[in-house]
């Protein structure tokens, strides 16, 4: 028994000692709740964020396809996009060409991503409720929408941490930025066709925005890992 105890003490000492003695500086971990969190390197964190973004984009693409197949006949594709409905994120000045994008700073990239993520939280919730109202909405669509909405939350958390680490800025994680009064989604339940058009538009916009997030984050990663080669040419 004595030897076991001694071993345990030694192990404890070793583990604690590693924290104290090692030269690696763990990144600051100040949560709102003040709880202890495990440190993770910036590179790994960025990788995880990118993985999240990729996955979200893939699922949003599937959602869009499912909805299209079910509710939107082919001729309507053009009609819907022509109707002048714009994605709400259009109001945000996001560069749309590679040259432009490659010239914006890291900080701007991160903030753009965060902004996008936060702007989609509520529309997704709305989407969940409205998709439920369809009689023959496929279960896959509903489950994927729900899943994406959850994943978006964790993506937001990851980006917040990244911002804190890379830019040394403290940012609130909650999405209280947006003005909810702008949301046209409250209250009324439109007719089926109108609802279909609106939902389809929402899904396509979401798909685009998730692709944006993914692209920005990948650019950021390249810049982080390989400063020289990733500079705009």
């Amino acid at each position, binding site marked *: 028994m004595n030897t076991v105890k001694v071993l345990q003490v030694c192990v404890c000492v070793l583990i604690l000692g590693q924290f104290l003695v090692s030269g690696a500086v763990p990144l600051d971990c100040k949560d709102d709740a003040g709880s202890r969190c495990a440190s993770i390197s910036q590179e790994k964190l960025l990788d995880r964020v990118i993985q999240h973004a990729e996955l979200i984009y893939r699922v949003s693409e599937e959602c869009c396809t499912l909805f299209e197949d079910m509710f939107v006949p082919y001729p309507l594709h053009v009609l819907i996009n022509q109707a002048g409905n714009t994605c709400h994120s259009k109001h945000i000045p996001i560069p749309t060409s*590679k040259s432009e994008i490659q010239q914006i700073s890291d900080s701007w990239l991160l903030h753009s991503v965060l902004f996008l993520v936060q702007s989609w939280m509520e529309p997704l919730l709305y989407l969940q409720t409205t998709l439920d109202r369809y009689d023959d909405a496929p279960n896959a669509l509903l489950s994927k929408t729900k899943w994406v909405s959850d994943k978006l939350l964790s993506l937001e958390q990851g980006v917040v941490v990244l911002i804190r680490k890379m830019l040394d800025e403290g940012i609130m994680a909650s999405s209280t930025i947006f003005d909810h009064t702008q949301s046209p989604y409250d209250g009324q339940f439109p007719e089926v066709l109108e609802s279909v058009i609106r939902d389809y538009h929402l899904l396509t916009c979401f798909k685009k925005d998730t*692709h944006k997030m993914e692209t920005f984050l990948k650019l950021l990663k390249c810049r982080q890992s390989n400063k020289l080669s990733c500079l*705009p040419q």
Partner: protein
Amino acid sequence: MMRISAAVLILTLIADLISQAAGVSPPGKPRLTSCRSPEKETFTCWWEPGDDGGLPTTYALYYRLENTETVKECPDYKTAGENSCFFDKNATSLWVNYNITVVATNALGRNISEPVEVDVVYIVQPNTPENVKAVVIHEDRDPFVKVSWDKPRTADTRSGWITLHYQLRVKQEEDKEWVEYDAERQKNYNVFSLHSDREYMVQVRCKPDHGFWSEWTQTTYVKMPNYIPRERSLWIMITIFSVFIVFILTWMLKVKHNSVKLCLLPPVPGPKIKGFDKQLLKSGKSEEVFNSLVIPGFPPTTDYDDLLVEYLEVYDNEEQELVLDGKDLSEDSMKSKSPSDSDSGRGSCDSRTLLLDKCMEGSGNDQHNYSQHGETSWASSSECSESQGSPGSPESTDGRMKTWPVVFSSPQPHHHYQVGATKPAYHSVPEILKHSPSHAIPSNYHQLYLQDIPPQEGRFTKPPCRHSQSYNQFNMDNVDISEAGVPPSRSLEYVEVQRVNPENILLLRPLSDPNREPEGSDRIDEDYSKVKEVTSNNTLLLQRETSHQVVNDYSQDFESYADQCTAQQTPHPCKPVMTQLHSQDMRVMGNGYVDTTVLMPLYKQF
């Protein structure tokens, strides 16, 4: 007004008719076939012209970005070739829908294609990979092909703007199907398991994260060398080795067949009963089986009666009947059974030494006579209770076999004991008859009449107590029992047989008799004598014992004593005892002693 419009109408009709007659018409509707962006920075759209109507037709592509009203025309019609529009970097916006239409115009009219919505990020199709090389690598292992390539020149993977996944496919010239391999984001791949001495075709393509696959590259040829696959050679060696081992094992097994068999399947010992015939048992006749176990002539059967000896039955009362007897093979002997078959519990009556005092508990009865014989005339003693127990069981017999009755006689000269002649055909122990003192024999001598005991028991007051004994049987004549019931004496004394007179009477005399001739001081010490041989006329020849071998007072299991000097029938310092025996009933053991076990009678219910 009416006239003008009518005139226009008429003119149009005429023009149409004329154009139709001439074969010209407004252009047909063009169609946008595809728009592609090779690197997500520029994109190109292609259209398909319709019928040109016989007249030179011009095509123009117009596009409108979503949520704007400005319609722009294609900036570059040349770069991408005929019927194409190339949008350069400046004209390309990502995540923005383009509304593109193509207009065909000729002298007679124009035609507009269907609009197409395009988002550049979704139409990415990279160019094919470049510089595909396939090399055969010879290392320690089996040769394989390493395929390597470069990314398409236009794709900007370095900055992370676009991420490409590669795929390659391989087949032989004559195969129908390609075998595809995924190389993920690598720019090289090792292809294994290719057949030797064959030529293979290799192609590569790539795809962005979200987009379309590129075209396959031009075929690259690679030739595999001639080699023997290591795996196959290994298997060949293993097979040969194992076959070899199998041969060796088989040969060894063959050689050591028996010992192996003995080791693996040890023989199960079967029942070993001498004379036991399994075949008889199988035939189901148990009697025959058991009969076959019978040693012929063992024990004496019908002749047994001849050897019936009337035993000396010594008892003091009805309850205690001490009978020393053998066994009569007749079935009558089975009747009475001794309650106690073992030697224990009955006191010395069961024991070899029949101690008089223990056996005498009740008052002496007229008919209970006993005599003591100090002589170790053998005999098997078997106890007989008054309840007519027949010592039927072999076990009891066995017990009795070990007990050797010793016939006692009272040393007191004034005591005359009469032998209770109520023993019927008892075999083993000689009954010693006492003569009445009226005989002209010194009173201190006891005489033993050795006579045949008639088998029936009617004349005996006591029921016979048969025992399965196999001792020599002295047929005693239960002659007149002396009427005088002599009170039992409590003392012990052994008698010895002095001689046998011609009338087959054992002359006994007590050992402590002072009148004994000093025939040999050592005679008292000697209780045993070895049997030398059995003569042809059923006579035991005893060896002259010179050594002092007094061990105990138990008489040995001798059949009888016979002396070398028996024939002379003269008093001699030996112990003449004659008996009739079947020579074959006895077996002389190596040391001169007689094995009396063979004289065990055989029971029918064996």
